[in-house]
């Protein structure tokens, strides 16, 4: 039997496909409106701040802070049940968007993950796309 794998997004979902395509080049992208400057995230085709906006893809530098997190102790998912305990977190990127992800590369997530700690992007490599995870800033 194959090893259970992390559940992955669908690369052809129409609102988010450009976001996921950019991850092939290890780029974390978000959208901003040329007209009203609204930052749009999760990705969409329309501006949520105005009705006429043109959205431009921007590149995040990949730095942020942990807005909040939880350490998951119990999961029935075939992949994640082998990963407990692991940290799920809302990461606030310096550019504004909040992204749901994991904080990895810590000895013990129960001790080493804190609200407001600085984190940076680290990519988990997959065949078609890459997954944006975060680790503490050195």
């Amino acid at each position: 039997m194959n090893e259970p794998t992390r559940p992955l997004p669908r690369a052809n979902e129409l609102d988010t496909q450009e976001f996921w395509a950019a991850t092939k080049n290890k780029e974390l992208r978000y959208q901003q409106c040329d007209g009203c400057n609204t930052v749009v995230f999760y990705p969409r085709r329309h501006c949520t701040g105005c009705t006429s906006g043109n959205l431009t893809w921007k590149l995040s530098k990949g730095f942020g802070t942990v807005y909040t997190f939880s350490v998951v102790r119990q999961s029935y998912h075939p992949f994640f049940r082998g990963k407990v305990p692991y940290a799920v977190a809302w990461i606030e990127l310096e550019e504004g968007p909040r992204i749901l992800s994991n904080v990895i590369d810590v000895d013990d997530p129960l001790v080493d993950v804190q609200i407001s700690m600085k984190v940076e992007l680290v990519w988990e490599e997959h065949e078609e796309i890459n997954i944006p995870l975060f680790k503490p800033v050195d």
Partner: protein
Amino acid sequence: MKQRDAAIVGIHEYQSRDVEGKVSALQIKAESAARALEDAGLSWSDVDAIYDAGDGGGMNGLTIAEYFGLKPTVIDTTNVGGSSYEFHAAHAKRDIASGKANAALLTYGSTAHSNARAIGVGGAGGAGRHPADNMDVFSGMTLVANYAMVAHRHMHDYGTTSEQLAEISIATRCHAMRNPDAVRAMEDLEFLDIRETTIDDVTNSRMIADPLHLLECCMISDGGGAVVIASPEVAKNCRKTPVWVLGSGEATKYPQAGGDITASAGAYSGAQAFGEAGITPAEIDIAMIYDSFSITVMVLLEDLGFCKKGEGGAWVEGGRLRFDRPSDGPALNTDGGGLSSNHPGMRGIFLLIEAARQLRGESCSQVPDAKLAVAHGNGGMLGSRHAAGTIIMGRD
């Protein structure tokens, strides 16, 4: 109390929480509907409006009327998760007030337990097609973790403790132990230790997703229920005392840059509902608040205005939420709640049912002379995108 547009006249809570796969969700809905109509002294033919969240499956807007054998002239299929029934009650009040309906039927049925659906810890649900799901799917965020992230930030910002959150669990369990149906539910679902609990019991129970412990998480049961809402003219001839729907509010909230995860859509729906009813939280005797987790209630007590944002921890201390402390503010979830009585996935209908029981004087944990109640449903996930429905209810 201003509005006398519509009243809850019939209620039924399906008794079993474990149907062992022998009864379907649709059958639970139909039986509950029949019992609620009997409770009101009405029959199927009196119903002219149907409200349905799709829990019976299929294309519910066109199939549920046939299943019940009705010819409704108002059909509302609002589905906002567990808060659907507060939205339905709000819409029924509106439709009755406008003259479009005279008797509205709300039903719920679920076999979540029989289906062995692990609602709380199943991992992110498949490879979602909705763009929001397509962004979240890789993270392994369980439902419990979603709410736990709210609790963590609440603790960080306001100093709230696990002991304070546990107050919500123990008050609810205290009420559950007085409700024979809740005790049977805990037996059928094989709860290990069926008794009143202490703060230590809660904080010593297994951590599911930090900082939420097992005894801060709702059960996963089968179940269902029904509510009949009618015009004043119909209510006049019903068997039971009318429970008036005095005000309602609806809102949603979702993650935004710079947003505050410790504040829910309930702040908006609550203000609307209290404003429409013309009353204040201080006047409320019964607070039926969706207790998917302890933190849900903590956040909502604040957002509904029982105390200020961030002060919920201190406010709930000392057993304040129990039914036998009426001078200290409202009694919480006097049926035993989703934590200890009934949670088949979308609990919102039970909030209306128990609030109506209290205002009729029929609760197992009756608050003497209860006059005003709030039922607040939270649908979706508190820590990301969710819906809030608030209903204010009162008796003559």
